[in-house]
Protein backbone atom coordinates (compact mmCIF):
# COMPACT_ATOMS: atom_id res chain seq x y z
CA UNK A 1 0.00 0.00 0.00
CA UNK A 2 2.83 2.30 0.81
CA UNK A 3 4.26 1.72 -2.64
CA UNK A 4 1.08 2.89 -4.15
CA UNK A 5 1.05 5.98 -2.04
CA UNK A 6 4.54 6.84 -3.16
CA UNK A 7 3.48 6.43 -6.74
CA UNK A 8 0.39 8.46 -6.38
CA UNK A 9 2.18 11.32 -4.73
CA UNK A 10 4.66 11.44 -7.52
CA UNK A 11 2.38 10.98 -10.36
CA UNK A 12 -1.04 12.47 -10.91
CA UNK A 13 -1.57 10.70 -14.17
CA UNK A 14 -1.32 7.27 -12.72
CA UNK A 15 -4.39 5.72 -11.19
CA UNK A 16 -3.40 2.39 -9.73
CA UNK A 17 -6.91 1.11 -9.46
CA UNK A 18 -7.58 1.60 -13.14
CA UNK A 19 -4.30 0.09 -14.10
CA UNK A 20 -4.97 -2.97 -11.97
CA UNK A 21 -8.37 -3.42 -13.52
CA UNK A 22 -6.91 -3.10 -16.98
CA UNK A 23 -4.20 -5.59 -16.23
CA UNK A 24 -6.65 -8.17 -14.95
CA UNK A 25 -8.84 -7.79 -17.99
CA UNK A 26 -5.89 -7.97 -20.33
CA UNK A 27 -4.91 -11.26 -18.74
CA UNK A 28 -8.41 -12.48 -19.41
CA UNK A 29 -7.91 -11.65 -23.03
CA UNK A 30 -4.63 -13.49 -23.00
CA UNK A 31 -6.29 -16.57 -21.63
CA UNK A 32 -8.95 -16.34 -24.31
CA UNK A 33 -6.18 -16.02 -26.84
CA UNK A 34 -4.65 -19.22 -25.58
CA UNK A 35 -7.97 -20.95 -26.00
CA UNK A 36 -8.32 -19.74 -29.56
CA UNK A 37 -4.80 -20.68 -30.44
CA UNK A 38 -2.48 -22.71 -28.24
CA UNK A 39 -1.21 -22.50 -24.66
CA UNK A 40 2.07 -21.29 -26.12
CA UNK A 41 0.41 -17.92 -25.97
CA UNK A 42 0.45 -18.09 -22.18
CA UNK A 43 4.12 -18.84 -22.26
CA UNK A 44 4.68 -15.78 -24.40
CA UNK A 45 2.80 -13.73 -21.86
CA UNK A 46 4.81 -15.12 -18.99
CA UNK A 47 8.12 -14.51 -20.73
CA UNK A 48 7.10 -10.97 -21.60
CA UNK A 49 6.07 -10.19 -18.05
CA UNK A 50 9.28 -11.59 -16.62
CA UNK A 51 11.42 -9.62 -19.07
CA UNK A 52 9.45 -6.45 -18.49
CA UNK A 53 9.67 -6.63 -14.75
CA UNK A 54 13.34 -7.59 -14.93
CA UNK A 55 14.14 -4.54 -17.03
CA UNK A 56 12.32 -2.27 -14.65
CA UNK A 57 13.92 -3.83 -11.62
CA UNK A 58 17.46 -3.66 -12.95
CA UNK A 59 16.96 -0.13 -14.15
CA UNK A 60 15.68 1.06 -10.82
CA UNK A 61 18.31 -0.82 -8.85
CA UNK A 62 21.17 0.57 -10.90
CA UNK A 63 19.97 4.00 -9.93
CA UNK A 64 19.89 2.88 -6.32
CA UNK A 65 16.24 3.55 -5.83
CA UNK A 66 13.56 1.49 -4.15
CA UNK A 67 11.49 -0.58 -6.47
CA UNK A 68 7.75 -0.26 -6.17
CA UNK A 69 6.16 -3.23 -7.86
CA UNK A 70 2.80 -2.38 -9.28
CA UNK A 71 0.36 -3.45 -11.90
CA UNK A 72 1.85 -0.96 -14.29
CA UNK A 73 4.77 -3.29 -14.80
CA UNK A 74 2.46 -5.98 -16.10
CA UNK A 75 0.43 -3.72 -18.29
CA UNK A 76 2.94 -3.13 -21.04
CA UNK A 77 4.21 -6.70 -21.49
CA UNK A 78 0.66 -8.03 -21.68
CA UNK A 79 -0.30 -5.48 -24.28
CA UNK A 80 2.75 -6.28 -26.33
CA UNK A 81 1.99 -9.97 -26.37
CA UNK A 82 -1.63 -9.39 -27.24
CA UNK A 83 -0.55 -7.43 -30.29
CA UNK A 84 1.70 -10.19 -31.58
CA UNK A 85 0.97 -13.09 -33.90
CA UNK A 86 0.37 -16.28 -31.99
CA UNK A 87 3.51 -18.19 -32.72
CA UNK A 88 6.17 -15.57 -32.32
CA UNK A 89 9.54 -16.94 -31.21
CA UNK A 90 10.23 -16.19 -27.59
CA UNK A 91 13.42 -14.28 -28.20
CA UNK A 92 11.48 -11.78 -30.24
CA UNK A 93 9.02 -11.37 -27.41
CA UNK A 94 11.88 -10.68 -25.05
CA UNK A 95 13.68 -8.27 -27.35
CA UNK A 96 10.49 -6.36 -28.06
CA UNK A 97 9.50 -6.11 -24.42
CA UNK A 98 12.96 -5.04 -23.32
CA UNK A 99 13.03 -2.36 -25.97
CA UNK A 100 9.56 -1.12 -25.20
CA UNK A 101 9.99 -1.00 -21.45
CA UNK A 102 13.50 0.43 -21.50
CA UNK A 103 13.25 2.99 -24.27
CA UNK A 104 9.56 3.62 -24.05
CA UNK A 105 9.15 3.93 -20.36
CA UNK A 106 12.15 3.77 -18.06
CA UNK A 107 14.34 6.18 -19.95
CA UNK A 108 11.74 8.87 -19.62
CA UNK A 109 11.46 8.42 -15.91
CA UNK A 110 9.35 5.34 -15.36
CA UNK A 111 5.66 4.88 -14.82
CA UNK A 112 3.59 7.84 -15.77
CA UNK A 113 6.36 9.86 -17.34
CA UNK A 114 6.59 8.41 -20.76
CA UNK A 115 5.62 10.31 -23.84
CA UNK A 116 5.18 7.46 -26.27
CA UNK A 117 3.15 4.41 -25.51
CA UNK A 118 5.67 1.68 -24.68
CA UNK A 119 3.65 -1.13 -26.22
CA UNK A 120 3.38 0.77 -29.47
CA UNK A 121 7.07 1.44 -29.44
CA UNK A 122 7.78 -2.22 -28.89
CA UNK A 123 5.39 -3.15 -31.67
CA UNK A 124 6.94 -0.69 -34.10
CA UNK A 125 10.40 -1.88 -33.20
CA UNK A 126 9.47 -5.50 -33.74
CA UNK A 127 7.70 -4.71 -37.00
CA UNK A 128 10.76 -3.04 -38.39
CA UNK A 129 13.24 -5.57 -37.08
CA UNK A 130 11.36 -8.75 -37.87
CA UNK A 131 8.89 -7.73 -40.53
CA UNK A 132 7.94 -11.22 -41.60
CA UNK A 133 7.61 -12.86 -38.24
CA UNK A 134 5.63 -10.01 -36.76
CA UNK A 135 3.75 -8.66 -39.72
CA UNK A 136 3.01 -11.61 -41.91
CA UNK A 137 2.96 -14.75 -39.88
CA UNK A 138 -0.52 -15.21 -38.56
CA UNK A 139 -2.34 -18.44 -38.00
CA UNK A 140 -5.79 -19.33 -39.18
CA UNK A 141 -7.55 -20.36 -36.02
CA UNK A 142 -9.54 -23.06 -37.67
CA UNK A 143 -7.08 -25.10 -39.57
CA UNK A 144 -3.76 -23.91 -38.26
CA UNK A 145 -2.44 -22.74 -41.61
CA UNK A 146 -0.09 -19.84 -41.79
CA UNK A 147 -1.74 -16.76 -43.14
CA UNK A 148 0.17 -13.83 -44.46
CA UNK A 149 -2.21 -10.98 -44.43
CA UNK A 150 -4.95 -10.17 -42.04
CA UNK A 151 -6.47 -7.50 -44.19
CA UNK A 152 -10.15 -7.91 -44.60
CA UNK A 153 -10.22 -6.32 -47.99
CA UNK A 154 -12.97 -8.33 -49.49
CA UNK A 155 -15.82 -5.90 -50.01
CA UNK A 156 -18.39 -8.62 -49.95
CA UNK A 157 -16.93 -9.85 -46.74
CA UNK A 158 -19.95 -9.06 -44.74
CA UNK A 159 -22.32 -10.43 -47.30
CA UNK A 160 -23.62 -13.05 -44.97
CA UNK A 161 -24.23 -12.78 -41.29
CA UNK A 162 -22.52 -16.10 -40.85
CA UNK A 163 -19.25 -14.57 -41.88
CA UNK A 164 -19.78 -11.81 -39.42
CA UNK A 165 -20.37 -14.21 -36.61
CA UNK A 166 -17.28 -16.08 -37.58
CA UNK A 167 -15.39 -12.87 -37.21
CA UNK A 168 -16.83 -12.26 -33.80
CA UNK A 169 -16.09 -15.69 -32.59
CA UNK A 170 -12.50 -15.60 -33.58
CA UNK A 171 -12.43 -17.68 -36.72
CA UNK A 172 -10.48 -15.12 -38.69
CA UNK A 173 -6.73 -14.77 -38.24
CA UNK A 174 -5.44 -11.79 -36.36
CA UNK A 175 -3.09 -11.00 -33.50
CA UNK A 176 -3.56 -12.78 -30.21
CA UNK A 177 -5.68 -10.16 -28.58
CA UNK A 178 -7.74 -9.17 -31.56
CA UNK A 179 -8.88 -12.48 -32.91
CA UNK A 180 -11.84 -13.09 -30.66
CA UNK A 181 -13.63 -9.90 -31.48
CA UNK A 182 -16.53 -10.66 -29.22
CA UNK A 183 -14.08 -10.95 -26.37
CA UNK A 184 -12.61 -7.58 -27.21
CA UNK A 185 -16.07 -6.07 -27.18
CA UNK A 186 -17.01 -7.60 -23.86
CA UNK A 187 -13.78 -6.70 -22.12
CA UNK A 188 -13.93 -3.23 -23.61
CA UNK A 189 -17.45 -2.84 -22.36
CA UNK A 190 -16.43 -3.90 -18.87
CA UNK A 191 -13.61 -1.39 -18.83
CA UNK A 192 -15.90 1.35 -20.01
CA UNK A 193 -18.53 0.37 -17.53
CA UNK A 194 -16.08 0.46 -14.69
CA UNK A 195 -14.94 3.85 -15.90
CA UNK A 196 -11.42 2.57 -16.04
CA UNK A 197 -10.96 4.16 -19.44
CA UNK A 198 -12.33 7.21 -21.10
CA UNK A 199 -15.05 6.31 -23.60
CA UNK A 200 -14.54 9.39 -25.70
CA UNK A 201 -11.29 8.20 -27.17
CA UNK A 202 -12.39 4.87 -28.65
CA UNK A 203 -15.66 6.39 -29.78
CA UNK A 204 -13.92 9.23 -31.57
CA UNK A 205 -11.45 6.92 -33.21
CA UNK A 206 -14.04 4.46 -34.46
CA UNK A 207 -16.48 7.09 -35.66
CA UNK A 208 -13.81 9.04 -37.48
CA UNK A 209 -12.40 5.91 -39.02
CA UNK A 210 -15.74 4.81 -40.36
CA UNK A 211 -16.55 8.24 -41.70
CA UNK A 212 -13.15 8.86 -43.22
CA UNK A 213 -12.97 5.47 -44.83
CA UNK A 214 -16.42 5.86 -46.28
CA UNK A 215 -15.72 9.31 -47.66
CA UNK A 216 -12.32 8.46 -49.03
CA UNK A 217 -13.67 5.20 -50.33
CA UNK A 218 -15.96 7.22 -52.52
CA UNK A 219 -13.10 8.98 -54.21
CA UNK A 220 -10.63 6.15 -54.36
CA UNK A 221 -12.72 3.02 -54.49
CA UNK A 222 -9.90 0.61 -54.96
CA UNK A 223 -7.81 1.71 -52.05
CA UNK A 224 -10.25 1.98 -49.23
CA UNK A 225 -12.56 -0.64 -47.91
CA UNK A 226 -16.08 -0.18 -46.74
CA UNK A 227 -16.54 2.08 -43.72
CA UNK A 228 -18.03 -0.62 -41.58
CA UNK A 229 -15.46 -3.21 -42.52
CA UNK A 230 -12.69 -0.81 -41.65
CA UNK A 231 -13.74 -0.91 -38.06
CA UNK A 232 -12.83 -4.54 -37.81
CA UNK A 233 -9.61 -4.46 -39.70
CA UNK A 234 -6.43 -5.41 -37.99
CA UNK A 235 -5.93 -4.13 -34.51
CA UNK A 236 -8.07 -1.02 -34.71
CA UNK A 237 -10.62 -2.15 -32.16
CA UNK A 238 -8.10 -3.48 -29.75
CA UNK A 239 -5.84 -0.49 -29.93
CA UNK A 240 -8.60 2.08 -29.63
CA UNK A 241 -9.93 0.39 -26.54
CA UNK A 242 -6.76 -0.58 -24.72
CA UNK A 243 -3.86 1.39 -26.07
CA UNK A 244 -5.16 4.79 -27.10
CA UNK A 245 -6.97 5.11 -23.80
CA UNK A 246 -3.78 4.93 -21.76
CA UNK A 247 -4.01 8.00 -19.52
CA UNK A 248 -0.28 8.59 -19.46
CA UNK A 249 0.21 8.97 -23.17
CA UNK A 250 -3.14 10.45 -24.09
CA UNK A 251 -3.91 14.11 -23.51
CA UNK A 252 -5.74 15.13 -20.39
CA UNK A 253 -8.47 17.49 -21.38
CA UNK A 254 -11.56 16.35 -23.17
CA UNK A 255 -11.10 18.62 -26.13
CA UNK A 256 -7.57 17.45 -26.67
CA UNK A 257 -8.64 13.84 -26.35
CA UNK A 258 -11.17 14.26 -29.09
CA UNK A 259 -8.55 15.74 -31.37
CA UNK A 260 -6.26 12.91 -30.34
CA UNK A 261 -8.84 10.36 -31.42
CA UNK A 262 -9.54 12.14 -34.66
CA UNK A 263 -5.85 12.40 -35.40
CA UNK A 264 -5.22 8.72 -34.79
CA UNK A 265 -8.14 7.76 -36.97
CA UNK A 266 -7.20 10.02 -39.85
CA UNK A 267 -3.57 8.99 -39.91
CA UNK A 268 -4.54 5.34 -39.72
CA UNK A 269 -6.99 5.64 -42.57
CA UNK A 270 -4.55 7.52 -44.74
CA UNK A 271 -1.67 5.13 -44.18
CA UNK A 272 -3.90 2.13 -44.67
CA UNK A 273 -5.36 3.52 -47.83
CA UNK A 274 -2.24 4.83 -49.48
CA UNK A 275 0.22 2.23 -48.41
CA UNK A 276 -2.02 -0.74 -47.80
CA UNK A 277 -0.22 -1.32 -44.57
CA UNK A 278 -2.13 -2.53 -41.59
CA UNK A 279 0.50 -1.05 -39.31
CA UNK A 280 -0.89 2.37 -39.99
CA UNK A 281 -2.41 2.59 -36.58
CA UNK A 282 0.89 2.01 -34.84
CA UNK A 283 2.44 5.01 -36.54
CA UNK A 284 -0.74 6.95 -35.89
CA UNK A 285 -0.69 6.38 -32.16
CA UNK A 286 2.98 7.22 -31.80
CA UNK A 287 2.64 10.39 -33.84
CA UNK A 288 -0.39 11.50 -31.87
CA UNK A 289 1.41 10.68 -28.64
CA UNK A 290 3.94 13.31 -29.56
CA UNK A 291 1.55 15.81 -31.06
CA UNK A 292 -1.52 15.38 -28.88
CA UNK A 293 -0.50 17.70 -26.06
CA UNK A 294 -0.49 20.50 -28.57
CA UNK A 295 -4.22 20.76 -28.18
CA UNK A 296 -4.24 21.56 -24.53
CA UNK A 297 -2.61 24.16 -22.32
CA UNK A 298 0.77 23.28 -20.92
CA UNK A 299 0.36 21.21 -17.83
CA UNK A 300 1.72 22.72 -14.68
CA UNK A 301 4.43 20.80 -12.98
CA UNK A 302 3.35 20.41 -9.42
CA UNK A 303 5.50 21.44 -6.56
CA UNK A 304 7.74 18.89 -5.09
CA UNK A 305 7.91 16.87 -8.23
Amino acid at each position, binding site marked *: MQNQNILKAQNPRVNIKNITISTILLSVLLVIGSLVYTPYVLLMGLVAIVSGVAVEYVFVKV*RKQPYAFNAGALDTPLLIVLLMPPQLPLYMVIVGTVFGVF*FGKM*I*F*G*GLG*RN*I*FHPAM*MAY*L*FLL*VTFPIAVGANFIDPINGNIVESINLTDATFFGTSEQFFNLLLGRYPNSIGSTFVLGVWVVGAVLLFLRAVDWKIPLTILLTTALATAILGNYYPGQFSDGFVALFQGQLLFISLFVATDPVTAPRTTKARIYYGIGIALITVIIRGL*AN*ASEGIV*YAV*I*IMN*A*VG*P*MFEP*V*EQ*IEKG*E
Partner: protein
Amino acid sequence: MIEFSNIFEMIIAAVFVSNIILSFYLGIDHQLFIEKKHTMINKRVLVILIVLPLSSMISFVIQQSLLIEIDALGEIVRDLTYFRTITFIVVIILVNYIILGLLSKFFSNQFKNLQNDFKGVLPSTIVLGSVIVITSSVTTLLESVLLSLVVVFGYAFVLNILKFIENQLEMKVVPKSFQGLPLQLIILSIMALIFSGFGG
Protein backbone atom coordinates in the same frame (compact mmCIF):
# COMPACT_ATOMS: atom_id res chain seq x y z
CA MET B 1 21.41 13.24 -52.08
CA ILE B 2 17.81 14.25 -52.06
CA GLU B 3 16.00 12.74 -54.97
CA PHE B 4 12.83 14.10 -56.44
CA SER B 5 11.17 14.71 -59.76
CA ASN B 6 8.56 17.29 -58.97
CA ILE B 7 7.89 19.82 -56.29
CA PHE B 8 5.54 17.59 -54.38
CA GLU B 9 8.09 14.84 -54.20
CA MET B 10 10.69 17.37 -53.22
CA ILE B 11 8.70 18.42 -50.21
CA ILE B 12 8.04 14.86 -49.13
CA ALA B 13 11.65 13.92 -49.65
CA ALA B 14 13.21 16.88 -47.90
CA VAL B 15 10.83 16.89 -44.96
CA PHE B 16 10.22 13.21 -44.39
CA VAL B 17 12.25 10.65 -46.21
CA SER B 18 15.55 12.49 -46.46
CA ASN B 19 15.10 14.92 -43.63
CA ILE B 20 18.23 16.91 -43.01
CA ILE B 21 18.48 15.89 -39.39
CA LEU B 22 16.95 12.46 -39.44
CA SER B 23 18.61 11.13 -42.57
CA PHE B 24 21.68 13.25 -43.01
CA TYR B 25 22.35 13.79 -39.33
CA LEU B 26 23.13 17.42 -39.98
CA GLY B 27 22.37 20.32 -37.73
CA ILE B 28 22.76 18.60 -34.39
CA ASP B 29 24.41 21.60 -32.92
CA HIS B 30 24.92 21.18 -29.23
CA GLN B 31 24.08 24.76 -28.41
CA LEU B 32 20.88 24.69 -30.35
CA PHE B 33 19.82 21.60 -28.55
CA ILE B 34 20.21 23.02 -25.10
CA GLU B 35 17.99 25.93 -25.90
CA LYS B 36 14.66 25.57 -24.17
CA LYS B 37 12.56 28.31 -25.57
CA HIS B 38 10.90 27.92 -28.91
CA THR B 39 11.37 31.55 -29.76
CA MET B 40 15.13 31.48 -29.49
CA ILE B 41 15.33 28.35 -31.54
CA ASN B 42 13.16 29.76 -34.24
CA LYS B 43 15.22 32.89 -34.35
CA ARG B 44 18.32 30.88 -35.06
CA VAL B 45 16.44 28.90 -37.65
CA LEU B 46 15.34 32.15 -39.19
CA VAL B 47 18.93 33.16 -39.65
CA ILE B 48 19.63 29.84 -41.31
CA LEU B 49 16.52 30.37 -43.41
CA ILE B 50 18.07 33.47 -44.89
CA VAL B 51 21.62 32.30 -45.04
CA LEU B 52 21.03 28.92 -46.56
CA PRO B 53 19.09 29.80 -49.72
CA LEU B 54 21.49 32.61 -50.47
CA SER B 55 24.53 30.46 -49.92
CA SER B 56 23.01 27.66 -51.95
CA MET B 57 22.18 29.95 -54.81
CA ILE B 58 25.59 31.53 -54.95
CA SER B 59 27.38 28.25 -54.47
CA PHE B 60 25.30 26.65 -57.14
CA VAL B 61 26.04 29.40 -59.60
CA ILE B 62 29.72 29.24 -58.85
CA GLN B 63 29.72 25.51 -59.15
CA GLN B 64 27.96 25.53 -62.49
CA SER B 65 29.88 28.33 -64.06
CA LEU B 66 33.35 28.14 -62.68
CA LEU B 67 33.96 24.74 -61.37
CA ILE B 68 32.51 22.60 -64.07
CA GLU B 69 32.17 23.35 -67.66
CA ILE B 70 30.65 21.02 -70.15
CA ASP B 71 30.92 22.01 -73.76
CA ALA B 72 28.42 21.36 -76.51
CA LEU B 73 29.56 17.81 -77.00
CA GLY B 74 28.84 16.92 -73.39
CA GLU B 75 32.46 16.54 -72.48
CA ILE B 76 33.88 17.97 -69.34
CA VAL B 77 36.16 20.79 -70.27
CA ARG B 78 37.06 22.09 -66.89
CA ASP B 79 36.80 20.23 -63.66
CA LEU B 80 37.77 22.23 -60.64
CA THR B 81 35.42 20.54 -58.25
CA TYR B 82 38.16 20.04 -55.77
CA PHE B 83 37.80 23.69 -54.96
CA ARG B 84 34.28 23.00 -53.93
CA THR B 85 34.83 22.87 -50.20
CA ILE B 86 36.87 26.02 -49.93
CA THR B 87 34.61 27.94 -52.26
CA PHE B 88 31.52 26.94 -50.40
CA ILE B 89 33.05 27.75 -47.05
CA VAL B 90 34.14 31.17 -48.26
CA VAL B 91 30.71 31.85 -49.71
CA ILE B 92 29.05 30.79 -46.50
CA ILE B 93 31.31 32.93 -44.36
CA LEU B 94 30.67 35.97 -46.48
CA VAL B 95 26.93 35.48 -46.64
CA ASN B 96 26.83 34.79 -42.92
CA TYR B 97 28.83 37.87 -42.10
CA ILE B 98 26.75 40.13 -44.28
CA ILE B 99 23.42 38.80 -43.16
CA LEU B 100 24.28 38.86 -39.50
CA GLY B 101 25.64 42.33 -39.89
CA LEU B 102 22.47 43.51 -41.56
CA LEU B 103 20.24 41.78 -39.08
CA SER B 104 21.96 43.15 -36.04
CA LYS B 105 21.86 46.61 -37.55
CA PHE B 106 18.22 46.72 -38.49
CA PHE B 107 16.73 44.47 -35.90
CA SER B 108 19.27 45.04 -33.23
CA ASN B 109 17.08 44.40 -30.24
CA GLN B 110 16.02 41.01 -31.47
CA PHE B 111 19.25 39.81 -32.85
CA LYS B 112 21.70 41.33 -30.47
CA ASN B 113 22.82 38.13 -28.93
CA LEU B 114 23.31 36.52 -32.26
CA GLN B 115 26.40 38.50 -32.91
CA ASN B 116 28.39 35.74 -31.38
CA ASP B 117 26.68 33.41 -33.71
CA PHE B 118 29.13 34.21 -36.35
CA LYS B 119 31.14 31.57 -34.69
CA GLY B 120 27.98 29.63 -33.94
CA VAL B 121 26.17 29.14 -37.19
CA LEU B 122 29.20 28.59 -39.28
CA PRO B 123 30.82 25.71 -37.49
CA SER B 124 27.46 24.13 -37.14
CA THR B 125 27.53 21.43 -39.68
CA ILE B 126 24.18 22.25 -41.09
CA VAL B 127 24.99 25.12 -43.35
CA LEU B 128 28.01 23.66 -45.03
CA GLY B 129 26.52 20.20 -45.21
CA SER B 130 23.20 21.43 -46.54
CA VAL B 131 24.82 23.51 -49.22
CA ILE B 132 26.74 20.52 -50.47
CA VAL B 133 23.68 18.29 -50.35
CA ILE B 134 21.51 20.83 -52.08
CA THR B 135 23.91 21.75 -54.84
CA SER B 136 24.39 18.11 -55.68
CA SER B 137 20.68 17.38 -55.77
CA VAL B 138 19.39 20.15 -57.99
CA THR B 139 19.75 21.05 -61.62
CA THR B 140 18.47 24.60 -61.82
CA LEU B 141 18.93 27.73 -59.80
CA LEU B 142 15.27 27.93 -58.89
CA GLU B 143 15.37 24.39 -57.60
CA SER B 144 18.30 25.22 -55.38
CA VAL B 145 16.39 28.03 -53.73
CA LEU B 146 13.23 26.00 -53.33
CA LEU B 147 15.02 22.97 -52.01
CA SER B 148 16.95 24.99 -49.48
CA LEU B 149 13.72 26.55 -48.23
CA VAL B 150 12.11 23.16 -47.86
CA VAL B 151 15.19 21.75 -46.17
CA VAL B 152 15.15 24.52 -43.58
CA PHE B 153 11.48 23.90 -43.05
CA GLY B 154 12.16 20.23 -42.48
CA TYR B 155 14.88 21.15 -40.03
CA ALA B 156 12.66 23.54 -38.10
CA PHE B 157 9.86 21.01 -38.13
CA VAL B 158 11.91 18.30 -36.50
CA LEU B 159 13.54 20.71 -34.09
CA ASN B 160 10.24 22.11 -32.89
CA ILE B 161 8.73 18.69 -32.40
CA LEU B 162 11.80 17.68 -30.46
CA LYS B 163 11.55 20.70 -28.19
CA PHE B 164 7.84 20.15 -27.79
CA ILE B 165 8.32 16.59 -26.65
CA GLU B 166 11.17 17.54 -24.40
CA ASN B 167 9.10 20.19 -22.70
CA GLN B 168 6.62 17.58 -21.63
CA LEU B 169 9.24 15.64 -19.79
CA GLU B 170 10.26 16.23 -16.24
CA MET B 171 13.99 16.15 -16.42
CA LYS B 172 14.48 15.34 -12.79
CA VAL B 173 13.24 11.81 -13.11
CA VAL B 174 15.31 11.06 -16.15
CA PRO B 175 18.56 9.26 -15.32
CA LYS B 176 21.35 11.76 -15.04
CA SER B 177 23.55 10.30 -17.69
CA PHE B 178 20.70 10.45 -20.16
CA GLN B 179 19.74 14.02 -19.54
CA GLY B 180 20.28 16.40 -22.38
CA LEU B 181 21.63 15.13 -25.64
CA PRO B 182 21.27 11.34 -25.13
CA LEU B 183 17.57 11.63 -24.46
CA GLN B 184 17.16 13.94 -27.41
CA LEU B 185 18.97 11.42 -29.54
CA ILE B 186 16.56 8.73 -28.47
CA ILE B 187 13.59 10.91 -29.31
CA LEU B 188 15.24 11.62 -32.64
CA SER B 189 15.69 7.91 -33.21
CA ILE B 190 11.98 7.32 -32.79
CA MET B 191 11.24 10.22 -35.08
CA ALA B 192 13.66 8.80 -37.61
CA LEU B 193 11.80 5.52 -37.51
CA ILE B 194 8.47 7.19 -38.01
CA PHE B 195 9.52 9.64 -40.69
CA SER B 196 11.26 7.09 -42.81
CA GLY B 197 8.36 4.70 -42.53
CA PHE B 198 6.07 7.51 -43.50
CA GLY B 199 7.72 7.99 -46.82
CA GLY B 200 6.79 4.54 -47.94
